[in-house]
């Protein structure tokens, strides 16, 4: 029966996947190769070669000497953790109220919050900058993190998840005398862990990779997040691709570890609409 499974279609499928793998992951692998190439390597060789002849860790030490990349990564981590926690709190609170509670004015609030999804970030960039300056938070990590703590998209995701929990679950608890907060925390929250994971992952990746807003808020180099710091790396070493590659590799390691660790939840969460069965 095995022979039956190898059809021309399967061959084409694997071939296409391999080509796409080379196009999508190849550039990253090439940076790893570049990052380990030493002075004895001709990185501009035609045709190019992959395995370093003069293998070295120098490029990484040089990056650490030239920019405080670990400090920038720490700043990014602080911003990211606050962003993830903040979004989980606001999205579950608002998602529960809008997805499960009945009260006058609900449609108005929903329209108000989801209407904001139509306002793109650039439209309010200038005024947000003025607001943050007015609060004397420019040049601080708090200023970077505050405007992003309540994503309307996350509320929408959580609202959908809460709304799809069967009503019997909550009714049983209500009969047992559980108040709305107890039902929220003990009955409903455990049911939406899948979606909460998706919100957490999206917030993490979004905050870690955010560039424009920290670029606007932060002027002081000691407060740079990793993305803003990496941009400076390019300016400083534009002549040496090895260092850019080493910097890119250093920045990629944590985010790829994070992704590979959580990818199971991520793909499961997205494909089942995020609702835990």
């Amino acid at each position, binding site marked *: 029966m095995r022979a039956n499974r190898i059809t021309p*279609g399967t061959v084409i*499928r694997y071939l*296409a*996947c391999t080509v796409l*793998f080379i196009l*999508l*992951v190849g*550039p*990253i692998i*090439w*940076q790893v190769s570049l990052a380990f190439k030493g002075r004895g390597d001709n990185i*501009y*060789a035609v045709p190019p070669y992959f395995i370093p002849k003069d293998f070295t860790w120098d490029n990484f030490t040089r990056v650490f000497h030239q920019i405080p990349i670990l400090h920038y990564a720490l700043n990014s981590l602080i911003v990211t953790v606050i962003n993830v926690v903040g979004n989980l*709190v*606001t*999205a579950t*609170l*608002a998602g529960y*109220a809008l997805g499960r*509670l009945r*009260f006058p004015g*609900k449609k108005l609030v929903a329209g108000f*919050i989801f209407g904001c999804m139509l*306002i*793109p970030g*650039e*439209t*309010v*960039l*200038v*005024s947000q*900058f003025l*607001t943050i300056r007015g609060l004397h938070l420019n040049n601080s990590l708090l200023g970077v993190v505050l405007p992003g703590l*309540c994503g309307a998209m996350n509320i929408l995701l959580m609202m959908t998840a809460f709304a799809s929990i069967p009503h019997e679950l909550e009714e049983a608890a209500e009969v047992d005398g559980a*108040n*709305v907060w107890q039902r*929220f925390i003990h009955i409903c929250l455990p049911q939406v862990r899948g979606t909460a994971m998706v919100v957490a992952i999206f917030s993490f*990746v979004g905050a*870690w*990779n955010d*560039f*424009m807003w920290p670029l606007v808020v932060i002027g002081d180099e000691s407060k740079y997040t990793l*993305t803003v710091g*990496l*941009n400076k790396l*390019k*300016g400083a070493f*534009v002549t040496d*691709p090895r260092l*850019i*590659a080493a910097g*890119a590799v250093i*920045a*990629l390691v944590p*985010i*790829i570890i994070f*992704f590979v660790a959580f*990818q199971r939840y991520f*793909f499961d969460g*997205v494909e089942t609409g995020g609702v835990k069965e």
Partner: protein
Amino acid sequence: MKPWSPWLFLIIPIIFTLVFTIYPFLNTIRLSFTNSTLLRTGQFVGLSQYSAVLADPKVHTALLNSTIYALCMAPCMVILPLILAVLVNKKTRIMSFFRTAFYVPAVAGSVISGLIWTNMMSAKGLVNALFLGLKWIKEPIPFLQDRWLLLFSAMLVTVWGGLGYYMVIYLAALANIDDSLYEAASIDGAGPVRQFISVTMPGCRMTMVLILLLSSIAAFRVFNEVYMLTGGTGGLGGKDITMSMLIMREGTGLTARTGYASALSIIMFFILGIITSIEFYVQRKADH
């Protein structure tokens, strides 16, 4: 349930929305009718900021670049990730490996992607070295210098980073297409291409419209890729500047012309609004 209970859940989200979205939006509208700068509260000047914006050649360049970006990106992002999703939509270990691998550029983020592709597409970078090695070209291609090549290189970075992201959305849609439709099609003698056109594409047409909307708006708002590839300058003579870059350049920092930049922001808001309405209209049509 006490009548105020829902509001206890909602108070924090509402405050955040008010302070960081609604107020700044209203403030942007107000500022766009004044000649304010960062250091000076301006006076009401009516529509003169708008006419200044519309007469500014920099704005024309930015509008053209952002529009071209959106027009080129939207079809790529609607079709290519769908093909990817169909390729990896098998529950085998090797396909789940490819699925994860294809998503990696999306988690890398556009700043790191920008760094990587600056390296790849520089005059002596890997792309030129490969093409030279294969004798396809005699001179290196100036990917990062020429005005149009630079814009297309930035698009390449966007596609590279976006394929995996939209692929995941398509995978969710593919999971909802009934397998019996494929069986019926294959009994009728439809090959893979025919099945793709007659079953897959109609089956996820709502998702296609959604991605058309998401990707064209994201493309019109492009910032990171062009910023990274041009080192923040917007290319030689600012010829590659985009709307978002222009808003940031004019509206932030110590020399910010907040009134002017606000008028620019409101114009951008309306353009994105028009794109959204067109696509909602398409969605309604697709629904029938």
